[in-house]
């Protein structure tokens, strides 16, 4: 018996492992020059990566003693894994706000409040919606790195005035759809399938104004009738096309991020997408005459609102050079010139009021539409949660089943989504 216990104890020792020392070093005084090596992970590739690298060069000129290495093509899962294993980058940019909740709650990203206070940075310079998605339970562990707003893109060769209501959207979508003799779809006015390109429930939520979480952080999906309104509208349009026909059509389309994007090719006349699509269109599909507008809504009083989200940036717990990491974040997220240059380069929206008002910001009529969506009072985002995007994922799973016809009971299905999300939130702690 004693021997068995000894073995068990040995194993327990293995389980615990060694705990890397937490990053508790007190921060430097204001004005100390940042030095040393830092590594930045981001998700940009190709054209966007080039634009980012220009700004990073500017940073290096301003901080000659910092040796910055940037790695592109990284994603949240990799960052999470690396931080957990104690090998995270000093600074990471995430493509969405989904990790803010768990990274703040678990301390994967350092609290930035001490730095913000020391360097006297006024958070009032950030719009409220942006502030809300970069903090969790009162802890600010992230800063906004440009923002994205979603609107309706339409192909001007097919659409003259963009639809303002869901009813108009449906009508126009049907009118613009082209079928061949066998009934197969050749061209689609609007492709309503969830899971197609940017058609996620979060991006479409502003159409009816549906909300995700209650104030206590638990799921509001089942109790908000606006979701059912959105689902009903979407399902009717899907059924009009026929799910099978739509899936066949969807499977024949090019990749979202390639030059063969269906909107580039005129295979869909209208699509919900972010402001970055303009840059892709101008780069990869110069012939396409496109227009942009706020997304159609169920209730005309909310017209003009949309979905806003953004990339976020933070300092890993594992960073060995938090001071230089902060210097980089400070430059990228609060320096008006840097933000404007980034926004002009990547063509995402700037996130400070100074940058939004800057004369150097290139604003064409299309970009202005997105700036207005961004500033609209009814514009929404996806709230940070301790389980990250789990509430969106669970809901999406239901929606995929529902739109295919495999699942028919909406209230029952949503109730299950609620209980699943609440359970996950409880488990994540």
């Amino acid at each position, binding site marked *: 018996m004693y021997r068995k216990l000894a073995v068990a104890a040995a194993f327990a020792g293995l389980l615990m492992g060694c705990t890397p020392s937490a990053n508790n070093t007190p921060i430097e005084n204001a004005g100390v020059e940042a030095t040393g090596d830092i590594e930045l992970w981001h998700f940009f590739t190709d054209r966007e990566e080039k634009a980012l690298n220009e700004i990073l060069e500017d940073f290096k000129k301003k901080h000659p003693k910092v040796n910055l290495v940037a790695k592109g093509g990284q994603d949240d899962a990799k960052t999470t894994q*690396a931080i957990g294993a*104690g090998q995270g980058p000093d600074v990471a940019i995430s493509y969405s706000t989904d990790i803010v909740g768990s990274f703040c709650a678990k301390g994967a990203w350092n609290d930035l409040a001490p730095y913000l206070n020391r360097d006297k940075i006024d958070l009032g310079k950030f719009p409220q919606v942006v502030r809300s998605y970069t903090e969790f339970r009162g802890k600010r562990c992230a800063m906004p790195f440009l923002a994205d707003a979603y609107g309706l893109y339409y192909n001007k060769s097919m659409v003259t005035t963009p639809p303002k209501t869901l009813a108009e959207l449906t009508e126009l979508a049907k009118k613009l759809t082209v079928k061949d003799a066998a009934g197969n779809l050749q061209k689609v006015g609007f492709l309503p399938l969830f899971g197609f390109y940017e058609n996620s429930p979060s991006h479409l939520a502003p159409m009816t104004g549906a909300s995700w979480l209650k104030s206590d952080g638990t799921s509001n999906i089942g109790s908000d009738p606006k979701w059912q309104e959105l689902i009903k509208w979407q399902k009717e349009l899907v059924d009009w096309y026929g799910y099978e026909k739509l899936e066949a059509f969807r499977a024949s389309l090019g990749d979202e991020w390639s030059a063969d994007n269906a909107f580039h090719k005129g295979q869909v006349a209208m699509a919900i997408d972010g402001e970055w699509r303009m840059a892709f269109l101008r780069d990869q599909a110069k012939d396409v005459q496109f227009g942009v507008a706020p997304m159609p809504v169920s209730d005309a009083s909310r017209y003009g609102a949309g979905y806003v989200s953004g990339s976020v940036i933070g300092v890993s717990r594992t960073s060995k050079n938090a001071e230089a990491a902060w210097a980089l974040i400070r430059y990228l997220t609060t320096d008006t010139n840097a933000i404007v240059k980034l926004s002009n380069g990547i063509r995402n929206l700037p996130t400070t009021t100074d940058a939004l008002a800057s004369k150097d910001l290139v604003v064409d009529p299309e970009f202005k539409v997105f700036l207005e969506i961004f500033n609209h009072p009814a514009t929404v985002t996806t709230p940070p949660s301790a389980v990250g995007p789990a509430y969106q994922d669970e809901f999406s799973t239901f929606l995929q089943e529902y739109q295919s016809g495999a699942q028919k009971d909406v209230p029952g299905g949503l109730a299950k989504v609620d209980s699943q999300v609440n359970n996950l939130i409880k488990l994540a702690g």
Partner: protein
Amino acid sequence: MNRPFLIFVARHSVTIALSLMFLAPLVFLFLTSMMTSNQTFTTEIWPQSWHPENYATVFEKAPLLRYLLNTVMYAVLATIFMLLSSVPAAYGLAKLRWRGRNTTMVLIICLMMLPPQVSTIPMYLFWANAGLTGTLWPAILPLLAGDAFAIFLLRQFMVTIPDEYLDAAKVDGAGEWKTMFKVVLPMARPGIAAAAMFQFFYAWNDYYYPLLYTSENQDNWTVSLGIASFKYAHHVEWELVSAATMITMIPVIVLFFFAQKAFVQGVTLTGVKG
């Protein structure tokens, strides 16, 4: 025409049709790898024009050479380490008498059958504590502690070697280690070749461990991980994906033709008789 002849034709036509079906995916992959990007989105199967330069382009567009070198390192080291640790273990299980031998054998078979996902979390934690995540070492180093499948295969092979040969060596004063090296190893060469081949291919084809351990560090990716992520890196260029896929298959095909016999023997040995 007589009936047996008809049966002969029918039989062969089935086999030939089956052969074509087995070859078709490879042929189609090859044809696609020779197309222009535009043609990959059409229904035409035969390339309108041939573009072998796709095979060069793919090396420029992705660090394929790097991936290949990583994969070779993984496969070669894994194979060597496996042999160093598993050959003695197989000998111990096949030819030596000791307390706990049967239990050990049962445990090794259990380990062989265990889905790798079962031990993933603890092992990931283990390698994170060792500071080795982000590299291929967590996939390679465990082979120093034996591979259950290889031990099983080698043991099955060594059991068939008559004890008389071993006794003769021992009469001449050889110890167990010497007997293993001088007598059993030469006789077990086909089994060792098969085990080595399996290990090499397992590592070459592996997707799970490289995905788990090297995702965040593209410098350490293997070809399988590279191909699976090809599309994910923003563009799907089927002609390039196909070319890269062909490249990963070539070493497998070449090696197989050289060592077909060892393979067939190895596979047969792992199946059960009676």
